[in-house]
């Protein structure tokens, strides 16, 4: 019924008592038609439109048509309750994200119960014309066999998912296409994006599972993963820059094997590191950081020496008396970093409390239902064993209370299902905050690399000077010294190159050069020697189009743009979330209150009696 889009919070397992509850209600005054009509109603809740049934008897739970129905929305079929519908909030609550109308990437709002909705609407500012769309669906998980070189006979099985894309963006070949991908491909995509888009807030990918092969068998897990993948890909599609990236395009379009270099696993990395180690240990103390390596942060295993040097530098930065050659002077950046840290902390706290709240609501619904059930049993017992008519009269009243409790319990459950969806926004942004932190640290680590190289450069130059001074004192020159000087000079040259690249990298993350004219724009592309041409071009295109004129825009920062975008989207999403959450609470509170008010009225005679 409501299973697919609520990961883990909602009723993944039907309670035995719930089954009991729903059956027990029928047993009382049960007729065959009553049974059938109720199960029709139940199945109708997951279809559209609702099938309203007229039951055989007047048991309130079975006669939804007794009460006037609110006008049915197109959107609203799942939780369209046929109980009392006051014209106030009840009408509004059942379409969780209908405020996202006009959303580029989500044509046709997904109705609760079917698919997860897009959490990152582009609404306030679209990067390009608003008729662009890129819609992704993940479906049809299938088990496949690992064909080649499996060490274990009988082989490795894995699951692939069908990824369907619909788009009208010209950069893609075609308007509708599908590929099959496995989870490992997602990991690859995510890693490549992280490398290419340092400094961007890249949405985090779904987690790997620790006990992958065992868990894979479970239907539930596969479904959960499918939903998570869909959400992830949709978020990527919503990111104005990443959606046009090569990596993303390749992932979505290329049939067969994913043509992206796979992440090297830890083992081979360690192997690399181990191979390099002797070289580092034994002399060649001027082990050099090759320029192309500089554009990535130092990773463990491979870059032991580099890590060590950068660590030394950062310590020198923190505790050393003198200022490092290039300092993080951008006050705004530092403030933003602080702000983001703060936000992450509070978001984490709020996310936790939201989980507790959801659990409390769920428990309330459960217990309320169990109470109602217990009283229904008591009613039945009284009716059967009654010796006096007064007992039966009391029993009838008791039954009203009991069915009210059961109704209230159902409302609580519905309320909770909606609450989960709304408050999910908190969890998702918490995940994104991690990406933000990575982006900020990308910048910091790029800066650190620059600083380290600069320090190293000056140290090397100093040595070169000393050697020259020493060798010039010897008549005719010192052959070994001269050789050493030559080597040193070569090392310095390479390090200089690395330094330039590192600075470029840092600047790339930090700042985009201003362009004065269209020609300069093309000129820059020609000049760009970075290996990341493609992404640079895409970025430049984006920036250029954003400026909407050949004239320059000044100091357009990567981080800052991203931050602004994040802030905007987050605020819009949070407002939506709050609105939805509150309206939901009010609507259901009214419904539940009505249920109890009715019972109170029916039994008001007792209040008058006892004085």
């Amino acid at each position, binding site marked *: 019924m409501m299973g697919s889009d609520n990961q883990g919070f909602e009723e993944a397992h039907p309670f035995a008592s719930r089954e009991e509850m729903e059956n027990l209600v029928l047993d009382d005054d049960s007729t065959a038609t009553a049974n059938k009509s109720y199960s029709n109603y139940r199945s109708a809740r997951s279809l559209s439109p609702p099938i309203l049934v007229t039951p055989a008897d007047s048991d309130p739970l079975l006669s939804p048509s007794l009460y006037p129905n609110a006008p049915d929305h197109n959107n609203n079929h799942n939780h369209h309750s046929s109980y009392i519908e006051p014209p106030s909030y009840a009408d509004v609550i059942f379409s969780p994200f209908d405020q996202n109308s006009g959303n580029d990437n989500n044509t046709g709002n997904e109705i609760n119960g079917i698919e997860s909705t897009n959490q990152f609407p582009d609404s306030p500012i679209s990067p390009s014309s608003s008729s662009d769309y890129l819609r992704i669906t993940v479906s049809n998980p299938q088990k496949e066999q690992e064909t080649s070189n499996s060490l274990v006979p009988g082989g490795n099985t894995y699951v692939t998912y069908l990824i369907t894309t619909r788009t009208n963006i010209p950069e893609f070949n075609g308007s509708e296409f599908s590929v099959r991908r496995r989870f490992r491909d997602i990991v690859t995509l995510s890693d490549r994006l992280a490398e290419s888009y340092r400094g961007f807030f890249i949405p985090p990918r779904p987690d790997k599972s620790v006990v992958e092969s065992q868990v894979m068998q479970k239907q539930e897990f596969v479904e959960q993963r499918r939903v998570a993948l869909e959400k992830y890909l949709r978020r990527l599609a919503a990111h104005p820059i990443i959606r046009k990236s090569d990596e993303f395009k390749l992932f979505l379009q290329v049939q067969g094997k994913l043509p992206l270099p796979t992440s090297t696993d830890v083992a081979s990395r360690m192997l690399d590191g181990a191979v390099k180690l002797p070289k580092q240990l034994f002399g060649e103390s001027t082990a050099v950081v090759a320029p192309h390596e500089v554009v990535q942060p130092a990773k463990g295993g491979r870059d032991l020496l580099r890590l060590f040097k950068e660590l030394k530098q950062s310590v020198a930065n923190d505790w050393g008396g003198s200022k490092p050659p290039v300092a993080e002077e951008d006050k705004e950046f530092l403030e933003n970093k602080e*702000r983001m840290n*703060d*936000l992450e902390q*509070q*978001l984490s*706290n*709020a996310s*936790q*409390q*939201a989980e*507790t*709240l959801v*659990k*409390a*609501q769920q*428990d*309330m619904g459960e*217990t*309320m239902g*169990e*109470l109602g059930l*217990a*009283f229904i*049993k*008591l009613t039945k*017992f009284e009716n059967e*064993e009654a*010796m006096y008519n007064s007992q039966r009269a009391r029993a009838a009243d008791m039954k009203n209370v009991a069915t009210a409790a059961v109704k209230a319990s159902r409302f609580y459950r519905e309320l909770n299902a909606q609450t989960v969806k709304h408050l999910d926004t908190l969890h998702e942004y918490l995940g994104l905050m991690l990406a933000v932190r990575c982006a900020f640290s990308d910048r910091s680590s790029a800066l650190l690399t620059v600083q380290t190289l600069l320090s190293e450069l000056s140290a090397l130059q100093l040595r070169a000077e000393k050697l020259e001074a020493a060798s010039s004192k010897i008549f005719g020159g010192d052959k070994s010294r001269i050789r050493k000087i030559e080597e040193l000079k070569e090392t310095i040259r390479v390090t200089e190159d690395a330094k330039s690249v590192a600075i470029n990298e840092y600047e790339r993350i930090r700042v985009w050069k201003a362009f004065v004219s269209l020609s300069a724009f093309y000129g820059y592309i020609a000049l760009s020697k970075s290996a990341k041409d493609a992404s640079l071009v895409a970025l430049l295109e984006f920036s250029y189009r954003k400026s909407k004129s050949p004239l320059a825009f000044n100091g357009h920062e990567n981080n800052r743009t991203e931050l602004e975008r994040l802030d905007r989207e987050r*605020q819009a999403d*949070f*407002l939506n979330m*709050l609105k939805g*959450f*509150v309206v939901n609470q009010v609507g259901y509170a009214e419904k539940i209150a009505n249920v109890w008010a009715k019972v109170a009225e029916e039994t008001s005679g007792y209040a008058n009696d*006892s*004085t």
Partner: protein
Amino acid sequence: MITTPRSGSGSAQSPRSPSSQPYLSVSVTDPVKLGNGVQAYISYRVITKTNLPEYQGPEKIVIRRYSDFVWLRDRLFEKFKGIFIPPLPEKSAVEKFRFSAEFIEMRRQALDIFVNRIASHHELQQSEDLRTFLQADEETMERLRFQETGIFKKKPTDFMQIFKDVQSKVSDVVLGKEKPVEESNPEYEKLKHYVFELENHLAEAQKHAYRLVKRHRELGQSLSDFGKAAKLLGACEGDSLGKTFSELGVKSETLSIKLQKEAHQLLMNFEEPLKDYVRAVQSIKATIAERANAFRQQCELAETIKLKEINLYDSCLLFS
């Protein structure tokens, strides 16, 4: 039997009614913690208003503690066999809960109802023990309380009975004798069955009621925590969004307070009464057990008489 309204004090009539109408109204109030450490206990003020001749004066106030109520109940149970004695609230198992305001209030209410039910029962109200309970000074009461445990020795008696039961059951099986368990007729059996079943249902309902109270408290607590978190988050965000979060936080906390209140109401007005009925049914069961006991004793004595008569006859024969 159990029809007393659930108000703070009192039974039928006000003190102002014409003095020809007999009345007896009791209230249990004013719980006060006395003593120290492990020996600490709660004392209650018991106020009796009456015009009955057996009582001293129109109003009398005494101080009683829980064990005094237990004494009264036990005496009544002994003396008035066959009558359903009103139930007492249980002794508290958990130490730290013993002095919580809520528990004390729950207990006070239950004790008040207990005494008033006795006072309204046309037979029980004439009990001398009741009079003692309502009027004796504290030292006398204390003495009586200690005596109770001395003389009547309830627990060992129960033990003996259990042994006897087993013994007689075994001998029955061995001798192939069928003993009637209790005097019975179909209507009585039906009632008995009803009572036993009722206890199960009520107990289950009470269990869920207790849980529901807990859920209300938990929901209240989580709303409060959520509200606080929302406020903090609002402080980070700033502007209209920040204000919205703050508002949400404030409202959440307000709701939390309401929920705690609701939990308390639910406890006092729903769960406690339910528990009271469970206890009442248990008290009825106790009386039923007593009835069975009495019947069995009668049977045994009848048998003993028969055996003795046979012996007498035999010895007469011998000596004649």
